[in-house]
């Protein structure tokens, strides 16, 4: 199961970030300015940690985790933008 969690880890991070920002935007707009930066920083750190954690896996898994963390981080940054624009 550990391998599986590594593989999808970055996307779980994305889900958490998305849900947080969406729920705040939809149901508690006033908290958005606090929630978004916290979640965004947490999400990016989590992705960095996942890359670090996966270093012991085989090369193939490392590739997927790195790529996933990259895509997840871009999506996280993008979905934080509307709060600031």
């Amino acid at each position, binding site marked *: 199961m550990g391998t599986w969690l590594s593989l999808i880890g970055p996307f779980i991070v994305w889900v958490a970030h998305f849900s947080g920002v969406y729920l705040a935007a939809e149901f508690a707009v006033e908290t958005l300015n606090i929630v978004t930066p916290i979640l965004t920083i947490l999400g990016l750190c989590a992705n960095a940690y996942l890359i670090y954690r996966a270093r012991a896996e085989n090369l193939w898994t490392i590739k997927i985790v790195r790529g996933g963390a990259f895509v997840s981080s*871009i999506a996280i940054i*993008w979905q934080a*933008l509307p709060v600031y*624009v």
Partner: protein
Amino acid sequence: MFWPVVLDPAGPNASEIATLSWLLIAVVTVVFIAVCVALATAVFGSHRWKRFLSHNGTILTAGFAAPVVVLTALLLYSLVITKSLSLGSEPEYLRVRVTGEMWWWRVDYLDSAGHQTIGDANELNIPVGKSITLELESADVIHSFWVPQLSGKKEMIPGRRNILHFSADKAGTYAGQCAEFCGGPHALMGLTVIAHQPEDFEAWRTRRRADPPPPKDDLAKRGATLFLNSGCAACHVVRGTSANGEAGPDLTFVGARKRLAAGILPNNRGTLAGWVADSQAIKPGNRMPSYPMISAGDLQAIAAYLEQLR
């Protein structure tokens, strides 16, 4: 003849979107051509080019890095205009409540307290260069207000009041249509927006606040009586008369409208008579029954009456 209305804006909202549209069209055209060229090279190209295309680096550059850069720029640009479009910039000049009803539009011009000053239907008159605020509501199912030359669409949802800010920068007549499927003759739920020069608009507004003049000729007078006695008044308002039904469109100035039956027919005595006699054939399923029992002569009288309500 094929010039798309979305790309022929007549107001600042639609122009901003048209600019974005052109940008997007340009970007996707370039990308499409690039992909097709790459595909053709992959199949028919020289060995060297094929080797280049089959590199992991090429995939990552063309399929990942490049889109990320382009899309980040486009996303930022689009978020900025999204915000400015939904806020509306200038002070509000005119506020109108447009209510979507099964297959026509109720148009109420509001005063500052939110009370109706002028009731109308299927036609929205606005001054050029002034900021307009629409309160979009629905009386039954979901409809969507769309006048492509002036603004993007906004839905009318039961239980909600959606606000749309826009303005026109050229005088003219702009067609609109319901964009959310609303059952039955959804296809025939049109709307006309007329943008006047500000002074013309004020003149129009003054005219409309008064009651329409009483019928002058005999035919129209007979038509007025028939209108009140044949059941029309149960559903329609004609200010200054006893006709006060609220179910259907306000007919106080029906003769002045450009089009009939929610944007689908030209407005003249013939089409008015035809509509009353057999609206169900023209717009199947609409809420107004056909009146085949009214004789041709009476029909002409009613049409004459309606036509002079202007």
